[in-house]
């Protein structure tokens, strides 16, 4: 090979290496050297940064976003990505806990409240989550597209994450439709808007109208939205804002309060870094149905009453990786300022810390007088301190996300699905094996059983195939109006399963899960039920509301033992109603102890029974101790007398 050839090869290889590496290196460099935006790093000043800012439109493909002026034509809704992203790293924020559910790289942590798919006619209450929490199904797994998910649960979605990510399951029409509706960007205002006129309920209305692009603006006091993207054709262009031919169909549009705009088209937005509890409550309320609709009778969490807010403990930095507050949480394991943001951390401090950490935020130090330490090894703090006082039967709860609380037109019936029971004391989902109070949901859904695994079938599919044999609306009108189960008979289930079997394409036998059982047809075509792990309830632990210490389990000295250690104690023997639409399964209950793995019900009963004799035991041992001490004293004094005589020379 001559020199010129070698030179050419060398040049070609060098060029190839440079071609591949330079963009990578420069890209990596760009990432590492990415300048933090002006709002990403605070200077330490504790006062509230005032946000007098330009509102910015969504960026059209290939174009820059523009500043919104009140006389723009057409007026566009502001884009949180562009408006807030001007000074804050939107991409970093979108990795935060509220937005990263669909990210497979994120540690799912302790199972939390799932989204619950409800369909009354098909008697479906199905726990869903993008996080791989055991017992919850992934929307993708059941064939639910992003668009369907948003329309079902967008009312309480914070936007971003899965709501913005491309959906490989989406039909082309859904992708096209997104150009009309826009995307559900992170709604920063949902949490950070301190304006009392902020109306988060409007967010749900906009989602129902497919106004995803307009949803965040609609919640703000300085903007109002009318029209519905749902009524617009796929060809409608929101950036042109043309009215459709049909005058009855109003295109979505936003109008701003012009008085809010300065001469520089800046708007004052009352942004609060320290989010108020009111904002959190929109998505994180729990209503105890034992008060019926008289919610004013319920007390709030004692921490709120003491002057704290949710974000005093549930903190996050710029990355919005909010601290969930349980011991052993994956994030911030080595940072004592984060690990002490737990019940134990604040009240008792961090063991092994080089400085005192107890009493954070003014947390009183508990003494737990008379409580054997074994309780702290077997129970979480919340077991004794959180939720309603356990009764003979579990309470029924409604939550914002499960029942759409706070939205307009929500069913206020106490019987509305999903049926969530609490407090259920179990360690089933606890990483440390401690018993904690949980909320519980009995899954009910139609599915396919293949290789021992049940995959849910969407209610729409069931209705399409077996709509005619589902329980009648007329017969169940009262129940359906209350949002409750229709009454299913075993014949109903068998009929539906037969219909589904008729269109079965060999992907496993159809089954119905409810009441903790799997129902299926046997070879003779009769309905049989059997136990199956999928039918077991989905449970997730809760920590709020925390009761005052004087209302915790075990308080009040020896009488406190009786709270859990008697033969009828709800902690062990409380009745957990097995919820089911099937009439034959009504009234079925399980005892709390059945939910506690490794706890023998007979033993606990006998152990609790022994507490009847405990006062006698204490009295016996104390009296015996006194008598023995008396003998020791008597003989000891006699001995001393003898010694005194001896030392005095008396034989």
């Amino acid at each position, binding site marked *: 090979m001559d020199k010129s050839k070698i030179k050419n090869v060398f040049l070609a290889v060098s060029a190839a290496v440079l071609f591949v590496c330079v963009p990578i290196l420069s890209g990596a460099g760009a990432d590492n050297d990415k300048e933090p935006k002006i709002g990403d790093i605070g200077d330490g000043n504790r006062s509230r940064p005032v946000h007098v800012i330009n509102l910015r439109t969504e960026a059209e493909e290939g174009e820059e976003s523009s500043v919104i002026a009140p006389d723009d034509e057409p007026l566009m809704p502001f884009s949180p990505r562009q408006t807030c992203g001007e000074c804050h790293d939107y991409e970093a924020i979108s990795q935060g806990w509220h937005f990263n559910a669909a990210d497979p790289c994120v540690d799912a942590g302790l199972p939390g409240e799932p989204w619950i798919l409800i369909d009354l006619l098909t008697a479906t209450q199905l726990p869903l989550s993008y996080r791989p929490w055991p017992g919850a199904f992934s929307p993708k797994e059941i064939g639910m597209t992003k668009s369907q998910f948003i329309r079902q649960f967008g009312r309480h979605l914070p936007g971003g994450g899965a709501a913005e990510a491309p959906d490989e399951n989406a039909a082309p029409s859904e992708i096209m439709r997104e150009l009309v509706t826009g995307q559900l960007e992170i709604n920063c205002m949902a949490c950070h808007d301190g304006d009392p006129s902020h109306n988060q309920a409007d967010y749900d209305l906009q989602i129902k109208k497919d106004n995803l692009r307009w949803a965040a603006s609609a919640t703000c006091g300085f903007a109002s939205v009318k029209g519905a993207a749902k009524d617009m054709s796929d060809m409608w262009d929101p950036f042109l804002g043309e009215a459709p031919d049909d005058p009855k169909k109003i295109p979505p549009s936003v109008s701003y309060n012009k008085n809010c705009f300065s001469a520089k088209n800046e708007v004052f937005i009352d942004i609060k870094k320290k989010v108020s509890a009111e904002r959190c409550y929109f998505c994180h309320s729990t209503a105890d149905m034992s008060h019926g609709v008289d919610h004013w009778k319920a007390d709030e969490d004692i921490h709120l009453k003491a002057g704290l807010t949710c974000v005093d403990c549930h903190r996050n930095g710029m990355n919005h990786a909010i601290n969930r507050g349980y011991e052993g949480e994956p994030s911030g394991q080595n940072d004592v300022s984060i690990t002490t943001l737990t019940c134990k951390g604040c009240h008792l401090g961090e063991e092994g810390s080089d400085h005192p950490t107890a009493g954070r935020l003014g947390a009183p130090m508990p003494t*737990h007088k*008379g409580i054997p330490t*074994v309780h702290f090894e077997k129970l979480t703090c919340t077991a004794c301190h959180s939720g309603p006082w356990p009764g003979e039967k579990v309470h029924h709860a409604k939550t914002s996300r499960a029942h759409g609380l706070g939205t307009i037109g929500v069913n206020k019936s106490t019987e509305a699905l999903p049926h969530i029971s609490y407090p259920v004391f179990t360690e089933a989902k606890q990483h440390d094996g401690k018993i904690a109070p949980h909320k519980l949901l009995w899954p009910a859904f139609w599915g396919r059983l293949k290789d021992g695994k049940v995959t849910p079938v969407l209610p729409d599919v069931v209705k399409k195939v077996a709509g005619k044999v589902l329980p009648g609306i007329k017969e169940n009108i009262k129940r359906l109006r209350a949002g409750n189960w229709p009454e299913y008979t075993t014949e109903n289930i068998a009929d539906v399963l037969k219909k589904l079997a008729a269109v079965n394409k060999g992907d496993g036998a159809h089954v119905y899960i409810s009441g903790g059982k799997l129902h299926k047809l046997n070879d003779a075509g009769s309905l049989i039920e059997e136990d199956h792990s999928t039918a077991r309830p989905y449970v997730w632990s809760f920590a709020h509301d925390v009761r005052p210490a004087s209302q915790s389990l075990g308080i009040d000295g020896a009488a406190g033992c009786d709270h859990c250690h008697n033969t009828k104690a709800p902690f062990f023997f409380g009745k957990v109603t097995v919820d089911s639409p099937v009439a034959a399964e009504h009234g079925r209950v399980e005892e709390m102890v059945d939910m506690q793995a490794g706890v023998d019900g007979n033993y606990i009963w006998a152990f609790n029974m022994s507490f009847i004799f405990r006062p006698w035991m*204490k009295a016996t041992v104390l009296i015996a101790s006194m008598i*023995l001490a008396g003998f020791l004293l008597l003989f000891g004094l006699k001995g001393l007398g003898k010694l005194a005589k001896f030392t005095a020379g008396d034989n």
Partner: protein
Amino acid sequence: MYRICLVIGFMLVLTAIALHQKSMRDIIKVKSGGNRVPTQKSLVQIIMQKSFGQIIVMLIHLATFLCFVVLAVTGFYPAMFTGEPLSGYSLMLHATASPVLAVCLVALVLVTAQRNRFDRKDWDHLQMCFSWKTFDEHGTISSATVIWRKVFFWLMILLSLPVMLSIVLSMFPIFGTSGQELLYHLHRYFTLLFVMSGALFCYLAIVSQACQFTR
């Protein structure tokens, strides 16, 4: 740590018993020319010779011993072999036997305190020990056995107080978490000492009875 203490404690007790047995055997051999001293009687013979009161005393001893064994086994087994805290049916058995032992100890003190008080002979024996006088070997072992029996009796009674109070006080709303932990550890360690002295007392009481050491 506690497991090591348990092993050491039990080894000390066994060593003490072995040493005592060895010295006993040597003396008995010398006295009887190699044959066993025919002072040991069968249980039936012993019972037949006893009065009603003495039988009651024996029953008290027996009940105390049984409770003692039950409590020691249920308490030490998990600490020794599983490392887990006492729980489950063992805990229930432990808690059931404990007040019975307390009552038995009171009864035992009532019926044997006078017999186990230190008297002039113990004092003489101690004086002999300290003045290096030679004396009859059988008399020595007899006196030493009796003195040690008395020592362990009173030690056992003394140690029973912290053993019982440490656990019963933890059931009252007096001590917080750190106090509870302290009481739990006090219970464990005092129990070890209590069991050691109790075991040695039992052994010496049986030997005294069997060999008819009259005091």
